[in-house]
């Protein structure tokens, strides 16, 4: 992102990508984050994606929708997405607004997210085709 590396970071850990949003993003920054992440999932053939949103003090309809879109696109590329770190007050505001993360899996924090991926993502390449075809 041309606005500098401080806004988000996308790190690779094995076959997973760990994307952290470090500060409030405006809509166009959010879109760019989505594009970057999807591109990297493809490039790195990631099987799992964790998006850490602990630093976000608001997840409004656009933010929630973008996370859902990411999950959807990642799924089409064979990766499972977990959202971690939604704060209690943010969770409350999201459901009051009438938004959720749809079918996306959410976990308390990074540790829980990794545990979820370890249990639910087949890491051997042979199983990848099966997983994605059963999901699509």
């Amino acid at each position, binding site marked *: 992102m041309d606005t500098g590396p401080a806004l988000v970071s996308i790190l690779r850990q094995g076959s997973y990508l760990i994307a952290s949003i470090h500060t409030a993003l405006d809509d166009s920054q959010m879109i760019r984050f989505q594009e970057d992440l999807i591109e990297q999932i493809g490039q790195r053939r990631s099987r799992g994606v964790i998006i850490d949103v602990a630093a976000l003090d608001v997840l409004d309809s656009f933010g929630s929708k973008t996370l859902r879109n990411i999950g959807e696109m990642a799924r089409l590329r064979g990766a499972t997405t977990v959202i971690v770190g939604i704060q*209690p007050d943010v*969770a409350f505001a*999201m459901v009051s607004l009438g938004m959720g993360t749809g*079918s996306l899996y959410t976990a*308390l924090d990074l540790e829980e997210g990794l545990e979820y991926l370890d*249990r639910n993502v087949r890491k051997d390449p042979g199983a990848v085709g099966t997983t994605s075809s059963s999901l699509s």
Partner: protein
Amino acid sequence: MDEDSRIDSQTEADGVTNEHHREDELLPQLVAHLREHRSKLREEWAHRIQDAHLLHAMTPQEMAVETKSVYDNYVEVLETGSVEALQDYARDLSERIIPRGVETQEVVGIVLLLRDVLARSLFEKYQRDFALLNRVLDAYEPAANRIANTVAVSFVDERERVIRQQQDAIRELSTPVLPVRERLLVLPIIGVLDSERARQLTEQLLAGIRTHRAKVVVMDITGAPDVDQTVANHLVQTVDASRLMGASVIITGLSPKIAQTLVTIGVDLSKMNTIGDLQGGLEEAERLLGYTVSRQDGSAR
């Protein structure tokens, strides 16, 4: 010091022209008198408190300490005209004695008794000069009333604060988030749920999920007699918000009536994890935890 004779001689010597100056002198004289006779007056006051059966929650030793402080503060207010120090003391005293069941009328009572004891003493002292006595009482009474007022208001304020605190505590107790075992919270909902309580409940549960790193919550609503549509909406939101924090919610004790309300507001009960009773809910929770939480919203992977 022969104070009495000094004042008397002044009385005789004073003319009308000195009137103004003398009014200024009255309070300091009065304060000096009350300081000089403090042990005797305090003792008398303590007797009167006993006779009136006030403050029986206090031991004689405590009584001695407090009456001494109140007396000194009282005289200081008369002297300086500033109630601030007294206010602080009164608040502090209230804080100490409210938990022991001391009532407002007792506190007002002891201050009025002190006012009375001191007024009597002034009466005795100045009774020979009725005009002077009148002026002394004119100077004393407004100050004394102000003191009584300050103490009473401080006490009532403090009492209200304590009551508010207790109410908060009770409110929190009424929606306890119980960590039953690792990663498992139980939230028994007891009593009438209104919109505000439902909101607090949600906030406490969400905070509890993070604190205890809960993965499963059993929400038991057996004890909730009535759930209207607004509250039902809150329940659904609580389930959704918990899920956003990575915890599954099992609802137990759902009465047919509440189930009907949920359906009325458009909740798909098949998507809610509902179990008949708390025992069954806890078993399901253990199963989920043992099985590890690979299911969410019934969507198997």
